């Protein structure tokens, strides 16, 4: 697991260097003396704010970032890198009573669910229901969704169905996958 806090604060070339290992699970370094390939299989997790000052999206704060500064910040993540990130979630600032609320699910049952899903993933691949296919085609028509974006939504929908223990990929799984697209703020879908 590679966790990068404040993703957009890293230099762009450092972020771009992640593309190859994300794709191949390996890093190859070429020097005069030859070429060495290191294993680099990892899951990338990153966090970032919606703007450099961090106030954007927070109703209690005032964002003072200029349009140019905002654009430069968001341009840090290239479209190619965003295309390789499967799940993007925007987290609005929680309210006090929401923080006080009951804590979420414990990790143990989640682990059991993930293990079971991984087990099922090794079996026969799940098919998409007719409704799921319809929703996916409608999404491609109506939303700015690239070919790569469509493939990603289909893949994430399959994972959602596996986690739910469903027998096929249903419309609700495609819908859930659609909600993890990169947001408009990052300029890509």
């Amino acid at each position: 697991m590679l966790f990068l806090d404040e993703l957009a604060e890293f230099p762009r070339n450092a972020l771009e260097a992640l593309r190859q290992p994300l794709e191949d699970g390996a890093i190859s370094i070429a020097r005069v003396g030859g070429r060495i390939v290191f294993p680099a299989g990892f899951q990338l997790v990153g966090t970032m704010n919606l703007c450099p000052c961090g106030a954007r999206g927070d109703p209690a704060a005032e964002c003072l970032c200029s349009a140019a500064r905002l654009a430069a910040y968001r341009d840090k993540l290239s479209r190619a890198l965003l295309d390789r990130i499967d799940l993007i979630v925007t987290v609005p600032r929680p309210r006090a009573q929401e923080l006080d609320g009951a804590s979420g699910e414990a990790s143990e049952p989640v682990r059991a669910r993930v293990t079971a899903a991984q087990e099922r993933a090794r079996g026969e691949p799940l098919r998409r229901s007719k409704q799921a296919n319809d929703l996916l085609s409608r999404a491609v028509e109506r939303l700015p969704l690239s070919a790569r974006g469509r493939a990603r939504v289909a893949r994430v929908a399959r994972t959602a169905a596996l986690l739910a223990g469903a027998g096929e990929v249903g419309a609700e799984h495609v819908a859930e996958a659609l909600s993890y697209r990169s947001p408009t703020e990052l300029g890509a879908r």
Partner: protein
Amino acid sequence: MSDLALAAFAAEVGRHVVEEPRERRFDRFRRSFDERAYRTALAAGRLRFVGRSEPEYPPLLRELHDPPAGLFLRGAAGIELLRARSVALVGARACSGYGSQVARLLGRELAAAGLVVLSGLARGVDGEGHRGALEAGGDTVAVLGCGVDRDYPAAHSQLAARVCERGLVVSEYAPGVEPAPWRFPARNRIIAGLAAATVVVEARERSGALITADFALEAGREVFAVPGEITSSLSAGTNALLRLGATPLTRAEDVLEALGIESPAAPTLELGEGARAVLEAVSQEPAGVDRLVRGTGLDAAAVATALAELELEGAVAEAEGLYRVVRQ
């Protein structure tokens, strides 16, 4: 006198020139100016020019006390697009998620009602207004504060190309003129001058969009302001406009009514039970997925399905993690 010579002279000396200058430099320039060659070069770059003394010059623009000597045009549409009834959508470049959604919504609905959506191609509100109009398959015109051949900002060159496909990019400034801060207020007078009404979506105090609103008021045009939160400095400019007597805009029909245009009947949505419950919750206040799960009693998968349905119907949109109703 030649309007084109005046425009070319302004580009040559890097000044804002509206009236024929009484100076030797201009006389010399005019004597050596080859209008035929200049027009040939324009045509080669697929650009056009319409001068103040020509009958095709937009009549609303002529009403300004300092109408530009002429406009350079780029794009597929004919010059008559500048005579069609249009509405200016202007506002902050660093706008909020709310501002960009409102701009997109208004661009879409005003264009769908047959109005031309005018703006300045800038980031934020301007760009969203153009995008909304394009989404509706409507007409949109971008007015630049630099040479007509430039895509400014560069990040919007693709948007400019899409505007050109069926609309126009226009500028008072000849090809090659660099963008400069002092040119933008002058550009704003053209946006306000071409438009029958100006809508300010989100603006800080002392924002360029307020300059556009001032020009519109001066020209006796309708000015609308979209109300915003009183605690947000991004709404300080629009709320100040409202205090000064601008018409509050709460739906696209407000503009249509003021211009005496019948609003097209909105298609009714056929929604599932879950989608209706989520729409009801979102219309009370913008909310993220977690809050919708708690508020509606539906599980996360049902909320996701409902949101996907509503988003595809164009009823809600997400920005900064919050879903909002974008169609009334």
